[in-house]
């Protein structure tokens, strides 16, 4: 054969079909292979587009694939492993080969499916997986080395030397394999995305005759129906058969009369997720996209009471040597390109078919004036073959295709006898194949359907009914458009009955009868010399499967993982059953014993952006804003995100410690005001409120007097510290808990959990009032003088309102709450008022403080103050610390139970060498400290004794101060250790101190 192809290509090139030639001469139809105006293309709207740098012409309504075929472009990519030239195989989303990069405004996007990508004016696409060019790909040498690259080759070939895998083999393989490539720098994805939640009585998947008939029935019954179809129009197989056009038009015209029925075309069902939840991805039309600000895809989350799977069947391939060559295509795809887009996929195509249904392509090509090179059919004869002969098409019965030859695309087809003897060679420029039809059972199996083998259809058929749903038409092996329509109608009646609706409305028009068909003959593989592919996308051959079986990977799922069969994005839709049959034959067992690959969501590749929806960038998580956010902004605050909150870090735009220390110094010297509204606040009421808090907190609250606050700690069930904060008793049966900002949600959940499970009998009501109350900390030696004039009728003397007092009253004329609690270590008050009145009270406090040089301070200054005092934040309450670790052991009540008590007694949680909280200062006061520095002894610098949790320059002391968790820390007071920060190349000698460095006697807070 070697010398023939070149000449033959030349001769074929001169032999154009008369219709094709006239079309080109008219110049009205874009592309030389366009022989008529298809049902979907609009000859009045020509589009220009580029593929691999070539400027080509197409029509509105084309897909990229149909436009490429119309221009005679056969080869559109290189294969995954062997870099073999590949063409367009299908006309739908099941396409394994024709994946392209699209270069758009937001950069290069890989793996667009050319067979579903709508052509647009100016579209720029490039082929994938080739270097330097599609025609000449250097890595195609992999094809020649094929026998050294069998299934699992990387497990065998690249074992030695051990060092070479990471440094040599893996980089090379990664570069050579894979499809598509992302831009080196992923651009900021500017495209919007959205998710829509849909609800229906019935979801119908597939708008072929089966789905349309069912929709008609259910719509007439008044049910809420969502009908989805991945195609650009409803109709399925009727779009390819003129006899059905009036039926389709009549049904499609009837559906809009039922407002509860919606039809979503261009919408692919991605998966069935149980409990009636389905995911579907809609591709928007350009007009719709423009309306929604450039939105391309819309994710639908559909919740349906019942589902009808009418997803039809998929044509499958036949494995034979060269079945991946550009020009080899499914027969149904050839029919589709002709009918929908007016494109003849070859000037002289041959066909290799084992079933009567696929002969529709023969009849259509003949009717369009395309001369078929011949039909090869393993069956000696059939009804369809007889009809083809009457149309003048040569049908070679009892024969098979043994090989396909050509330099880059199909040029000749070798026809062999069933016993392998060569019969003759046929000149053809395309080969349309059909190995029968496999019901699209992926969704059915996701819903729990079992599959049964049907010998007469040579296919696995799912059960007719699944949980809350039915399967009808081609999806359960009922083939033929009319038979599927009847089956869909019957399933719809059953569903209507299930939902308690009478289904006696007008039914569909009578469908045209199905042609009588002779039975198919199962044909999986033609065994001859050469690579016969069962998985085109992952380059898996029938020989690979036999090798896997031989090496012990006999079970289907093992074989799949060993060979990568069915693991590509198409999940082996075209050749899945074929590969299973090859495995069955290799093992010598019947096919049903092998089973079928299980398809999983997503049914097709889906952009991450579509899943993310609008929750990207600044809306990735909600931002919580303080009631005074605008005031802080106007006061020049720099904000920091803590949890979901935006908090003022410092009232300065410049960085550096100076403004922070100014703020902190003001608090120590006079007074400062800070917004602590982010603290979690939980209102606890009920006759058992005190009892409940005694159980929740490790210390006692039932003894707390009304009008007093108490610092409390709560443990997790496992004995570790959960949170701390002050809780006030506002009335005998009314408490207010405050939590740390970071833990507010976790604490509320913890409380709710115990209230609903372990304490379900208690009369307690929990309400999150965090957003209700704005809360300000007024701290500093002059704070009493600032707030005093604003609280009418309230005596603030130490005797009347001592440390840890709490009361309700009017503050600057606003009903609020006043607490005498301190985080800074100074005399301090916390003022809580309804958030809507926050500005009134905040402004009044600032005004009242003018003569005391009162100034606002941010989170950084607050942190400086609390580190000096040794108060805790989530840096220390980090989930790994116990009450004892943080020096809070004395708070644990001696009698009575509380959450976490038992497990806190574990020996490991009370070991002497545990990390304990200490204060630290550098011996050399000029040196700085860093959070996260490791503490080591000078004599053992490789053994970490703990680490710094917090550090700040001090306003009270000279130089820096910090808090650290140190092994056996309380026994080390006075020692000198080193703080090492290797990434900063810093080592600082420290003094170990008690954690309450400032005012350990608490004289200031009581002043």
């Amino acid at each position, binding site marked *: 054969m070697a010398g023939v192809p070149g000449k033959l290509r030349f001769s074929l090139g001169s032999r154009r079909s008369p219709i094709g030639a006239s079309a080109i001469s008219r110049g009205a139809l874009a592309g030389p292979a366009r022989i008529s105006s298809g049902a979907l293309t609009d000859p009045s709207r020509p589009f220009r587009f580029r593929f691999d740098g070539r400027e080509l012409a197409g029509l509105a309504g084309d897909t990229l694939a149909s436009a490429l075929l119309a221009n005679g472009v056969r080869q559109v990519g290189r294969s995954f492993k062997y870099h073999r030239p590949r063409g367009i195989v299908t006309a739908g989303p099941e396409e394994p080969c024709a994946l392209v990069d699209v270069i758009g405004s937001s950069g290069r996007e890989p793996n667009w499916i050319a067979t579903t990508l709508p052509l647009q004016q100016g579209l720029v696409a490039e082929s994938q997986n080739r270097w330097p060019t599609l025609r000449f790909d250097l890595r195609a040498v992999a094809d020649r080395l094929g026998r050294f690259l069998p299934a699992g080759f990387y497990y065998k070939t690249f074992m030695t030397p051990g060092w070479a895998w990471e440094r040599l083999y893996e980089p090379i393989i990664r570069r050579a394999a894979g499809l598509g490539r992302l831009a080196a720098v992923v651009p900021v994805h500017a495209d919007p995305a959205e998710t*829509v*939640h*849909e609800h229906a009585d019935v979801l119908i998947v597939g708008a072929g005759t089966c789905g349309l008939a069912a929709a008609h029935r259910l719509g007439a019954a008044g049910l809420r129906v969502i009908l989805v179809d991945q195609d650009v129009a409803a109709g399925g197989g009727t779009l390819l058969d003129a006899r059905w056009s009036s039926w389709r038009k009549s049904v499609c015209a009837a559906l809009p009369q039922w407002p509860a029925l919606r039809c979503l075309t261009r919408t692919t069902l991605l998966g069935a997720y149980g409990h009636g939840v389905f995911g579907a991805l809609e591709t928007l039309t350009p007009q719709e996209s423009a309306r929604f600000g450039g939105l391309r895809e819309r994710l639908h989350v559909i919740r349906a009471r019942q589902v009808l799977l009418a997803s039809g069947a998929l044509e499958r391939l036949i494995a034979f040597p060269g079945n991946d060559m550009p020009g080899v295509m499914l027969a149904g795809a050839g029919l589709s390109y002709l009918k929908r887009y007016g494109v003849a996929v070859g000037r002289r195509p041959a066909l290799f078919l084992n079933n009567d249904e696929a002969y529709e392509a023969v009849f259509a090509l003949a009717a369009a004036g395309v001369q078929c090179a011949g039909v090869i059919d393993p069956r000696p004869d059939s009804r369809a073959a007889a009809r083809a002969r009457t149309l003048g098409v040569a049908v070679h019965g009892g024969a098979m295709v043994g090989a396909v030859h050509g330099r880059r695309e199909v040029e000749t087809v070798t026809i062999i006898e069933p016993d392998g003897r060569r019969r003759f060679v046929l000149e053809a420029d395309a080969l349309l194949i059909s190995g029968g039809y496999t019901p699209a059972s992926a969704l059915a199996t996701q819903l729990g359907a079992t599959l049964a083998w049907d010998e007469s259809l040579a296919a696995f058929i799912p059960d007719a009914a699944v949980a809350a749903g039915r399967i009808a038409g081609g999806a359960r092996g009922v083939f033929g458009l009319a038979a599927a329509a009847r089956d869909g109608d019957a399933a719809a009646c059953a569903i209507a009955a299930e939902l308690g609706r009478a289904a006696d409305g007008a039914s569909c028009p009578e469908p045209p009868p199905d042609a009588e068909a002779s039975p198919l003959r199962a044909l999986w593989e033609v065994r001859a010399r050469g690579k016969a592919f069962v998985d085109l996308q992952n380059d898996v051959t029938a020989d690979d499967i036999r090798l896997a079986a031989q090496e012990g990977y006999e079970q289907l799922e093992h074989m799949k993982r060993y060979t990568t069969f069915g693991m590509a994005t198409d999940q082996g839709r075209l050749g899945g059953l074929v590969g299973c049959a090859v495995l069955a034959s290799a093992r010598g067992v019947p096919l049903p014993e092998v089973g079928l690959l299980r398809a999983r969501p997503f049914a097709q590749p889906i952009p991450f952006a579509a899943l993310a929806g609008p929750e990207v960038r600044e*809306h990735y998580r*909600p931002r*919580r804003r303080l009631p005074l956010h605008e005031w802080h902004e106007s006061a020049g605050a720099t904000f920091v995100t803590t949890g979901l909150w935006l908090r003022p870090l410092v009232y300065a735009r410049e960085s550096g410690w100076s403004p922070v220390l100014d703020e902190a110094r003001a608090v120590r010297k006079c007074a400062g005001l800070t917004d602590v509204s982010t603290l979690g606040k939980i209102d606890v009421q009920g006759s058992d409120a005190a009892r409940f808090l005694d159980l929740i907190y490790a210390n006692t609250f039932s003894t707390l007097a009304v009008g007093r606050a108490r610092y409390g700690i709560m443990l997790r069930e496992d004995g570790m510290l959960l949170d701390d904060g002050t809780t006030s008793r506002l009335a005998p049966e009314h408490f207010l808990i405050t939590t740390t900002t970071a833990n507010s949600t976790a604490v509320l959940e913890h409380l709710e959990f115990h209230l609903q499970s372990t304490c379900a009998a208690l009369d307690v009501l929990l309400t999150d009032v965090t*957003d209700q109350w704005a809360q300000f900390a007024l701290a500093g030696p002059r704070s009493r003088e600032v707030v005093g004039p604003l609280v009418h009728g309230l005596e603030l003397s130490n005797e009347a309102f001592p440390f840890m007092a709490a009361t309700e009253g009017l503050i600057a004329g606003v009903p609020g709450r006043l607490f005498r609690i301190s985080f800074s270590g100074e005399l301090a008050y916390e003022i809580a008022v*309804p*958030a*809507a009145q926050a500005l009134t009270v905040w402004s009044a406090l600032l005004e009242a403080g003018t003569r005391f040089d009162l100034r606002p301070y941010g989170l950084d200054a607050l942190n400086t103050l609390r580190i000096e005092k040794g108060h805790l934040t989530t840096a220390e309450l980090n989930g790994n610390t116990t009450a004892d670790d943080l020096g809070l052991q004395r708070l644990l009540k001696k009698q009575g139970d509380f959450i976490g008590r038992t497990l806190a007694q574990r020996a490991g949680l009370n070991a002497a060498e545990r990390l304990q909280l200490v204060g630290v200062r550098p011996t050399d006061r000029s040196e700085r400290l860093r959070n996260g520095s490791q503490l080591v002894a000078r004599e053992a610098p490789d053994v970490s004794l703990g680490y710094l949790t917090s550090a700040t320059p001090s306003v009270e002391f000279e130089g820096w101060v910090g808090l650290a968790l140190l092994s056996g820390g309380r026994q080390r007071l006075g020692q000198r250790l080193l703080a090492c920060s290797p990434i900063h190349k810093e080592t600082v000698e420290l003094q170990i101190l008690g954690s309450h460095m400032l005012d350990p006697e608490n004289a200031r807070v009581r002043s």
Partner: protein
Amino acid sequence: MSGPESTTAPDTRAGITCAPLAVDVIELAARRERTQVLKALAARRGLPLPALGWVAAARSTLVLAARPERWLVLSAPAPPGVALSSWRSACAACAAAIELSSALSALHLAGPAVRDVLARGCRLDLHPAAFVPGSTAATSMAQVPVVLSMLPAGWLLLTPSSTARHFREWLTATATPFGFVSAAGVTVASLSGESTQ
């Protein structure tokens, strides 16, 4: 054959109007086994407490039952603390009265596209047959909690005030393709015009 989304031109009509609602909110939470006492007390005050999932309207007040044994009482703004103290003293024995006027931010939505917009964030079935006027539900939209109520005069949304701006940004962005119009504030009285249960 196409769905309702096949409108081609950008929608310039007001598909959805959004207005802030100034409102006082008191949550009544029934004490354990005191629900009937609370209901009787509320009824004596001319305010029947609806069943879970429903809204009741009376005397320029709306009562939403979006959580079990809890009711949100919405009334026209009064000076701070007034609404609370009247309830707190009345129901001390049978319920906790908690002021949430500042905690919740209220929006009123109306227009033909409200359902289309809400479906882009809300998992609930808002079809007129499923979520009839007078329905209320606690749910989550745009990652924040929302109490959603359907009234004869439109939709009422209550969201936490700290995330109100985030929610409003999401709503504006989502509603723009449908024609989004910001309107002046509405009053509780105008929403509670007729009894809905």
